[in-house]
């Protein structure tokens, strides 16, 4: 049975894209339904119809500029926070992997600190450090640091014991062991931690901004500003949509990064194809 390859690719693309598109249409349809039918005229500010959200939020030049600046500000803070978390997190994990006593000493603290809700810490950070960009970055670091340390540590310690034996048999030193065996073994876990941390960092940037309420205006402050005044209904939705898009983009980007770096050899089903 012969099929034209171009036709198959087309068919497969349609099969992949069509169902979600249908769901999206249904969602938008429901949105319109709620906006026009469920809500009476007086209460329409609760959920403006999609085309008005697009018109006021994205097509109005000033509003769009305001929202984009918010996105940019939040993204900067999240990016810096993530970078600090990554460097610090990996460094600490490496240290812990090298000496059992360090691991035993620090591990309980890490697990406990991870459990503290970030919202409880934000007011304290504001109290101690103010509201400038360093305080915001601190919020991001605190929220995104733990997945990186714990995942990296787990990855470093889960290297194939046979590979460790090989290094021992051929008198490899501690550095050799770390660079040739432990770190590459840890890459899949590091990327998993990175993906989680990236998303959390975005949340940290928005939440920190929301609570601080001062300084460089990011998405958090915009959302707060829009939510306090019913006139900004469309912009509120637009800001929320933008925040979501930011989170999704970050998630997909780190997925692509993982694929680019370890995709060639990492077989997630068999855990690495040993």
């Amino acid at each position, binding site marked *: 049975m012969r099929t034209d390859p171009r036709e198959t690719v087309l068919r497969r693309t349609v099969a992949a894209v069509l169902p979600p598109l249908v769901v999206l249409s249904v969602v938008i349809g429901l949105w319109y339904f709620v906006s026009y039918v469920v809500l009476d005229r007086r209460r329409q500010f609760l959920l403006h119809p999609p085309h008005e959200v697009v018109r006021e939020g994205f097509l109005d030049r000033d509003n769009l500029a305001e929202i984009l600046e918010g996105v940019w500000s939040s993204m900067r803070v999240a990016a810096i926070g993530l970078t600090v978390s990554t460097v610090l997190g990996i460094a600490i994990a490496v240290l812990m992997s090298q000496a059992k006593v360090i691991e035993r000493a620090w591990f309980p603290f890490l697990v406990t600190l991870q459990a503290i809700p970030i919202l409880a810490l934000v007011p304290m950070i504001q109290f101690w450090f103010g509201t400038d960009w360093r305080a915001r970055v601190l919020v991001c670091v605190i929220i995104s640091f733990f997945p990186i340390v714990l995942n990296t540590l787990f990855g470093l310690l889960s290297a*194939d014991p*046979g*590979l460790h*034996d*090989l*290094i*021992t*048999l*051929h*008198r*490899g030193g501690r550095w*050799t062991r770390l660079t*040739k*065996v432990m770190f*590459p073994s840890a*890459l899949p876990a590091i990327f998993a931690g990175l993906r989680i941390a990236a998303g959390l960092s975005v949340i940290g940037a928005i939440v920190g901004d929301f609570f601080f309420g001062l300084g460089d205006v990011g998405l958090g402050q915009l959302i707060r500003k829009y939510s306090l005044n019913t006139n900004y209904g469309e912009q509120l939705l637009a800001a929320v949509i933008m925040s979501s898009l930011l989170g999704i983009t970050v998630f997909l980007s780190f997925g692509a990064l993982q694929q680019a770096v*370890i995709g*060639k*050899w*990492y*077989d997630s089903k*068999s855990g*690495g*194809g*040993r």
Partner: protein
Amino acid sequence: MTFPDGTAAVADATLRIDPGEFVTIVGPSGCGKSTLLRIASGLLEPTSGSIAIERQHIGYVFQDPTLMPWRTVRGNVELLTELHGLRREERAEAAQRAIDLVGLTGFEDHYPKSLSGGMRMRCSLARTLTMQPPVMLFDEPFGAVDELTRERLNEETLRLFEQQQFAGLFVTHSISEAVFLSTRVLVMSPRPGRIVAEIGVPFPYPRDPDLRFDPAFASISAEVSHVLRAAGS
């Protein structure tokens, strides 16, 4: 050899292997043969007794291929040469020679995830061969592959043995594999293991695959089997 938790793994084992000899150790699971091998390689310190072995280059073939998934076949085979500080040209040359020896030519740029079990084992073997070790220790390396592949790998191991003339110590729980490969078969009792018998295998090298069906082969295998049973497995 007694482990810290009190497990007595190996009770008493004295053996001597000369270059050009291929010795197998057969024994039931858990009798301590792998432990003995690890002691011989230096990975484990015995609680009593001593080893005299040319420590410089020992080839150790593990039960699992133990490949690095993030390296290609070539990258994996070059590992030991890297650890021993060979120059890039030397590393490449040694690796290619070993890859050709085990029959993996053409697969140099493949990653382990796309190799079959037998091919991964060959890659592991190639890695060990790059340093041309005078002593080769094998820890049940072919247990995880299917029988056909196993027989082929046995034949290739013998070919390598004839070429490289290393002193081989091979641990297995397959009697036919033991008899086919070795000049001597040592039988180990259940834990705590001791060497209870030594059976010579007089067939000359190179050995024909059909040797497995020779009546003399069968009678030696039978002798090994009887000793194993008598030892209480």
